[in-house]
């Protein structure tokens, strides 16, 4: 057995595959094809494309955060519940009062960071499998939230709705915010020491530790980033829905879908390889599918079946070249 055989096979084969570009092209072909096929040419105009971009925002922000934890070799199943917590907290604290916007946003970010810290701490310090750790934290959050609120709580003031509905020209603020967050994420990963350490930790934790990297801190920091992103998604949803309810995160299946788009975007589920542009392209693919299903008038339930199949096939499309063991 040569050295090459002992390396994960994916690492050698995937390098030649520009996943983000392929996903982008696939999305474009699907979208344009569906618009031409159904004759809805207005979807190809500026407003149609802006609508498509707007569909990406909610899932996009949380998926950027999920990218960080997955790159670190961890995972976060608590994001959907944290999104609900943030949305409810924001609208409950604001109660329609513009003066409370800043305190509410601050509170949401502090709570989110604390949840991320707990997630990361349980994973890194207590040695709990990340799936179980974040699932457990998610259950704890959801239980507390649903025990305290059972419907839309409070409301957000007009000014705060600008986050979801405001535009510069025709481009919504929220789309620009997503783009800005993606650029910041990409810079963090590519150009900072934290980014390099993150890839090292996810790629080979023992090796990284032996090389002097504080892998515990990296894992915790990745979880804090992920939870902050989930908090931002919660704020965005509260702004869009004008109020928060304890089921907004779960209804959006943000936990599973954010993981799915990260993996579809070419980030290795075991960590250490991938990036934010792949994730964003995965989000684009999901948003495109939604838009295409709408154009074709596919009913809700078959849509769900096809979505499940597409998640599997999209991952299979490149996973099939992987020669290593898969469980």
């Amino acid at each position, binding site marked *: 057995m040569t050295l090459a055989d002992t390396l994960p096979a994916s690492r050698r084969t995937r390098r030649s595959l520009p996943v983000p570009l392929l996903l982008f092209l696939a999305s474009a072909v699907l979208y344009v094809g569906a618009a031409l096929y159904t004759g809805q040419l207005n979807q190809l105009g500026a407003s149609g494309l802006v609508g498509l971009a707007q569909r990406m925002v909610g899932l996009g922000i949380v998926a950027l955060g999920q990218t960080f934890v997955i790159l670190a070799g961890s995972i976060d199943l608590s994001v959907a519940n944290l999104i609900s917590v943030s949305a409810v907290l924001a609208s409950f604290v604001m109660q329609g009062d513009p003066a409370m916007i800043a305190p509410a946003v601050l509170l949401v970010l502090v709570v989110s960071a604390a949840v991320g810290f707990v997630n990361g701490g*349980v994973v890194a310090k*207590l*040695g*709990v*499998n990340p*799936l*179980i*750790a974040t*699932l*457990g*934290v*998610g*259950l*704890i*959050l*959801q*239980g*507390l*939230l*649903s*025990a305290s609120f059972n419907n839309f709580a409070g409301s957000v003031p007009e000014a705060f709705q600008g986050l979801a509905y405001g535009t510069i020209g025709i481009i919504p603020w929220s789309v620009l915010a997503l783009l800005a967050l993606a650029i910041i994420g990409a810079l963090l990963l590519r150009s900072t020491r934290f980014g390099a350490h993150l890839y090292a930790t996810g790629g080979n934790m023992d090796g990284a530790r032996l090389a002097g990297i504080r892998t515990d801190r990296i894992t915790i920091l990745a979880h804090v980033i992920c939870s902050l992103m989930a908090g931002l998604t919660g704020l965005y949803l509260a702004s869009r829905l004008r109020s928060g309810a304890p089921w907004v995160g779960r209804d959006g*299946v943000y936990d*599973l879908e954010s*993981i*799915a788009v990260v*993996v579809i975007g070419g980030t290795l*589920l075991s960590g250490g390889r991938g990036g934010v542009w792949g994730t964003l392209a995965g989000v684009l693919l999901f948003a495109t599918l939604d838009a295409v299903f709408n154009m074709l008038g596919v009913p*809700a*339930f*078959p*849509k*769900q*079946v*096809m*979505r*499940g*199949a*597409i*998640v*599997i*096939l999209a*991952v*299979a499309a490149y*996973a*099939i*070249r*992987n020669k290593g*063991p*898969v*469980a």
Partner: protein
Amino acid sequence: MSVAAAGEPKWNGGMSLFRKINIAVIVFVILYAGIAILQPNYLEPAGITNFLRRATPLAVLACGQIFVLVAGGFDLSMGALVTLTVIGGSMLTDNDPGNTAWAILVLYAIGLGVGLVNGLVVTVLRVPSIIATLGMLLSLNGVAMMWSGGSPRGYLPDNFRFFGRFTFRDVPLVGSFPVAVVVLVVVALAAWWGLQKTVFGKRVFAIGDNPRAAALSGVRVEATRIAAFVISALAAVTGGILLGGFGGVSVDVGSGLELQAIAACVIGGVQLMGGRGSVIGAVAGALTLFALFTLLNLLGLPQPLKDTAQGVILISAVASGAWRRRRAG
């Protein structure tokens, strides 16, 4: 020879495993004592068998899930398959008791198909099982909704509900004995024998422990993995048939059960990512989880706090296991 070699270290781990099982059993006894203090009739034979009856679906699911977990994977599609079983049962029987027999056969065939697809997607398409079974979860939920037209209601025929609902009366010693408990005993014994007494079971442990080593020593890794997913799916169908006997037909009978089954296994000392675990632990874990839910109910806590308690017990179970493994070196 190769299989025995792969299985050998497991017996050294066996002793620490034994201690872990005891923990789940001890926690269960403490929780059950709490239940009995609040509601003394839980100590009567009828109370005990009724508790077991209601815990049976979860325990059966845990008995299936453990095969996939020990093999190193996850089966997130179980809950959706439970829902599909209940809804499919109602659509297939169409309120006619005469349809029950073949309906159950068809449901098991569906389960077999789902397990095979899960296994093939993981082994042939090489999709990690957490994603593969998640996709299956989404698809099965969609299929169940399509089949039922979105808002199923009513009840299954009485003979379909026999397994979940019927109780033998005037049984010596215990007085009454639910059919579901018979199912639980049969399923648990079958799972214990299959996972811990057969060569197949040793192969499941081997591929979960170290798939490459297992493959090099001649285990057919992919066939074993597919079989584990099939067993899990068949357990889910069994759990669905039991749950169909409990209450009415609805679209959320199975939701969240896959996580509860995984939680039950984990509480019982099954190691995620494979290689370690026991059926007794999984069943004890399921009983523990169910006792916890019952206790919270009796304490009159709001229903959602059930989730919170489940989260706390999950993290503490795994954290204590990890801590003891570290201490043991």
